[in-house]
């Protein structure tokens, strides 16, 4: 277990922007912003992270209870502006001079002045009438028309409303409206013991079971200074890569399917099914539930080199067939380009960032086991659908190579220390950073003296990457949207907690 050093610093509202500016200049990125309700004060924690070496800095800002407000950092960091809007919707903490001071998470039919995360919020009130229509920007001009899509879609897709302003077939502007299914997960976790909250973390997003479960465990273990056995780190890394594999394989096929190349989709579904069955053998659950545990990990058996080699060669063949088809290549190439500057500014994560040349990967930047730093870096600079396709293909190879390395040390069975060496007396906090298959997942917990969670803050990479989708789509044609959306494949569940 690598020791992580988290520096916690109290700041005043006046000093905050200067601190943030210095941190960003120093290569830090804003990973998480969480508000906390203390007895007499609102406390906002800004978590900044940087890799090589692993650095984590927390800025803590206190604001009065009656009229909570913070200086907006939107001008310094785009993600900060989004976190502030989230915080305002859930806690009623007002970001001063925010450039876009409107609702993000709470749709218009949620009553004004009711903030669900506050301790005095009570049960959720009935939905009021929509006080104001959602301020969609109307693009005007000759021949401009709108295509509203969703929130109910054909196929098994989570709810999201997309409004395209289009001239001819070219997209002038896309507005993605999400947050149709706010579940109140973070609120639900409050007051639970870490063990009771663990199933919630495991179910944040069905396809990221290991990622979120592991980030939660790391956060709790960080808070309790709970060192887990060496072997547990190995097994956790194995499970994380298995999750990446089956999701990337499914995406590779789905991208082919979206350009009408069904045969490759059929074959990736076959490979995915093999992987899911392998998952079931490893953890007893096709989506890998029950593998990562608080304090350790458990696997019933481990994949063999042969299994993995067969999968890698199958995937390589599928990718080669896709690229050999000139129509598929033509559809992917140059479609929906996200520039490196755009990706960096928006704070995009995972394969989306890496396909645009931004090499950010928590396996190297914030390793929980030293072996994961060995993972090969897969980046492209083009930022188009093809780049996102190829990064996934490359990550499948890199994942299997890492697995080969990990499997040398891994032993099936239990590797767990079921309780921390000693329980701290007072309130503690901890952070877990994990490179899930979509990108870096951040969990931050605060645990009270009674051993119950005072706060769980979850940041799925989708929350940070979603704004990149409309940017990439500018100037793309409407029929290329589904394919582009699939190449991002962002989570709705992880975004809307």
């Amino acid at each position, binding site marked *: 277990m690598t020791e992580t050093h988290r520096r916690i610093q109290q700041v005043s509202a006046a000093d905050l922007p200067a601190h943030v500016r210095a941190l960003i200049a120093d290569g830090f990125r804003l990973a998480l912003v969480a508000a906390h309700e203390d007895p007499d004060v609102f406390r906002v924690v800004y978590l900044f992270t940087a890799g090589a070496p692993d650095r984590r800095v927390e800025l803590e800002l206190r604001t009065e209870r009656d009229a909570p407000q913070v200086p907006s950092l939107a001008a310094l960091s785009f993600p900060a502006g989004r976190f502030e809007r989230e915080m305002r919707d859930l806690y009623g903490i007002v970001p001063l001079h925010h450039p876009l001071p409107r609702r993000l998470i709470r749709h218009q039919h949620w009553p004004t002045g009711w903030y669900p995360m506050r301790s005095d919020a009570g049960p959720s009130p009935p939905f009021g009438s929509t006080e104001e229509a959602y301020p969609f920007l109307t693009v005007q001009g000759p021949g401009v*028309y*709108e*295509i*509203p*899509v969703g929130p109910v*879609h*054909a*196929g098994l897709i989570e709810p999201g409303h997309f409004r395209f302003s289009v001239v001819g*077939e070219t997209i002038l502007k896309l507005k993605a409206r999400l947050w149709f299914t706010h579940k109140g997960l973070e609120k639900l976790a409050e007051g639970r013991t870490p063990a009771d909250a663990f199933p919630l973390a495991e179910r944040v997003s069905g396809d990221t079971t290991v990622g979120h479960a592991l980030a939660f465990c790391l956060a709790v273990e960080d808070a309790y200074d709970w060192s887990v056995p060496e072997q547990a780190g190995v097994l956790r890394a194995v499970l994380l890569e298995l999750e990446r594999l089956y999701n990337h394989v499914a995406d590779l096929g789905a991208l*082919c399917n*979206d*350009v*009408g*190349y*069904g*045969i490759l989709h*059929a*074959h990736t579904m*076959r490979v995915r099914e093999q992987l899911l069955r392998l998952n079931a053998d490893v953890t007893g659950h096709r989506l890998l539930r029950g593998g990562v545990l608080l304090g350790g990990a458990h696997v019933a058996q481990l994949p063999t080199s042969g299994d993995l080699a067969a999968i890698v060669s199958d995937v390589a063949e599928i990718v080669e067939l896709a690229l050999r*088809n000139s*129509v*598929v290549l*033509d*559809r992917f190439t140059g479609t929906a380009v996200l520039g490196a500057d755009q990706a960096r500014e928006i704070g995009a994560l995972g394969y989306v960032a890496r396909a645009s040349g931004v090499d950010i990967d928590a396996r190297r930047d914030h390793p929980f086991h030293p072996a994961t730093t060995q993972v090969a870096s897969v980046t492209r600079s083009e930022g188009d659908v093809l780049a996102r396709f190829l990064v996934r293909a490359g990550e499948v190879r890199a994942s299997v190579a890492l697995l080969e390395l990990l499997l040398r040390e891994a032993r099936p069975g239990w590797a767990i220390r079921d309780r921390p060496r000693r329980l701290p007396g007072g309130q503690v906090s901890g952070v877990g950073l994990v490179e899930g298959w979509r990108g870096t997942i951040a969990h931050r917990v605060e645990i009270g003296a009674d051993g119950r969670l005072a706060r769980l803050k979850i940041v799925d990479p989708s929350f940070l990457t979603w704004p990149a989708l409309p940017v990439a789509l500018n100037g793309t*044609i*409407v*029929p*290329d*949207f*589904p394919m582009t959306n699939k190449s991002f494949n962002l989570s709705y569940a992880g975004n809307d907690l």
Partner: protein
Amino acid sequence: MTASGLTAGALAATAGQLALVVGGAPLLVGLMRQVRARLEGRAGAGVGQPWRDLRKLLGKEAIRPDGSSWVFTMAPLLLLASTLVITAVAPFLSTVSPVEGVADLFAVVSLLMLGTVALALAGLDTGTAFGGMGASRAVTVAALAEPTILLAVFALSARVGSSNLADIVESTLTTPAQVLSPASLLAAVAFAVVIIAEAGRLPVDNPATHLELTMIHEAMVLEYAGRDLAMIELASAMRLTVLLGLGANLFMPWGIATTVAPLPLLGAAVVFAVKLGVLGAGLAVFEVFVAKWRLFRVPELLAGSFLFGLLAVSASFFLA
């Protein structure tokens, strides 16, 4: 054979042709899906699935969107009726037909266009973005595809001196060498591309997709349900069959009856079914290996096929 006997026989031929196409079109679609499924390593739903779907849809009420007008209601009827007329007059089983004069090149193309326009208007009539989007795309494709059908068949009719489809088929039967003439080969290529575009197959349109934003034909008919949808599904399958049938008989007419005697008609029906089965399976195999083109490249494809049609016409005049 007396004149009345001839008419009765011709009527029987037409009736048989109608029955064969109406009954067989969904089976052809089922066959194509099944071929595709098997080639992709899937089990497939079976050749009879489109008929089962139709039976299910026919048993359901037709829900029509609020505010839609008679245009929406009429479109499925118009589409089905116009396709039925083409089916009745086209020379599929016999070159002798009671409605011979109607089997004219221009009449057939106009009837195809009538169905396309009816659907496009219905798409617009729903007032939804998808309907309008699909209609706009479908008209773009049709505006390029229909003239190409006209040109391709025109190249064949130039040497016969008649725009009557039955005459063209008969002429090919008497001088089979025509099939290998440059005009005929060029026209065949143009016609093949147009069939793919008109019938909404890959790489122009993906009939299997659920992604509304990429659809052409399916986007126009998204609002249809129950009986209306059944009519549209049946008519679409019939249009595919008719287009493939025209392609088969214009360029490979062998097997078609030149009389209306029962035995040749029966033989012609079998040969026609086999020809369509082979063509349909071939199209399905082709579809497995192609992906869908970027929408803006479809006009390029159709412009190319139009050029083939034009060359075919030129060739039929200058190389004849």
